[in-house]
């Protein structure tokens, strides 16, 4: 007598199994279009996450640079600056000049 095993199925097909298999499972009932849309979005989830991370890093860097720019202490630089001022110089007063030897 042959013992049925997965590699040695029964000699005759089981009519009950055939009859049961002819029953159609109830339709799945979920929104096919919604599933396809969700699948399309899910297929790009990693790419989307990558660009979100990049955008977040860039935004953080921009905020950091802006903060550093606005809160930095003022730098004082001393630089000589020459200013020319016009000033009236009084004329010198005349003085008595002693005669020279040649004139005596």
């Amino acid at each position, binding site marked *: 007598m*042959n013992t*049925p*095993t*997965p590699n040695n199925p*029964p*000699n*005759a*097909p*089981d*009519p*009950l*199994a055939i*009859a*049961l*298999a*002819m*029953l*159609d*499972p*109830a*339709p*799945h*009932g*979920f929104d*096919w279009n919604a*599933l*396809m849309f*969700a*699948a*399309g979005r*899910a*297929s790009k*989830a990693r790419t989307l996450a990558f660009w979100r991370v990049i955008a977040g890093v860039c935004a953080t860097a921009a905020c950091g640079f802006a903060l550093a720019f606005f809160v930095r202490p003022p730098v004082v630089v001393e630089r000589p600056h020459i200013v020319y001022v016009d000033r009236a110089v009084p004329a010198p007063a005349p003085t008595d000049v002693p005669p020279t030897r040649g004139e005596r």
Partner: protein
Amino acid sequence: MGPNQLAELVDRCAAALVLYARQWCATPEDVVQTAFLKLVRIGTPPDNLLPWLYRVVRNGAIDASRAARRRHRYEAAAADGAPKWFSPSYDPTGIDARAAAASLADLPAETREIIVAHLWGGLTFEQIAQAVGSSAATCYRRYAAGLEILRQKLGAERPAHTK
């Protein structure tokens, strides 16, 4: 996996997967949709695609049933309002769909899942063994035992064994 491949897979397997998940939970459609989305997210489909899908659906359905129990939803109340397992059968010589569903619901879970996966999912016993984490021989034994129980419940004839 491209959209055409996914669409073909959904059209081919979704109904059988929903039937498979209905054994455990009242929301099999959600479980099956989640399984398809998980398949899309992994990028490259696994080599043993069907057993993988059935395993994911199985785990998801069991988790859903546990979550439902934790939320104090009684499965009997959910089953009373649950959709039918099979489309109505208009073949007078065939098996009554409701009787078949009732008989299947009475089977032990580990036996019923093998019968559903083999008869309506089209999985081989090796594939079923991969999905449920058992051996092909054990799966076949449970399948044969389950068919015998169904035969008694539905009053079907035994197959003719030829030498």
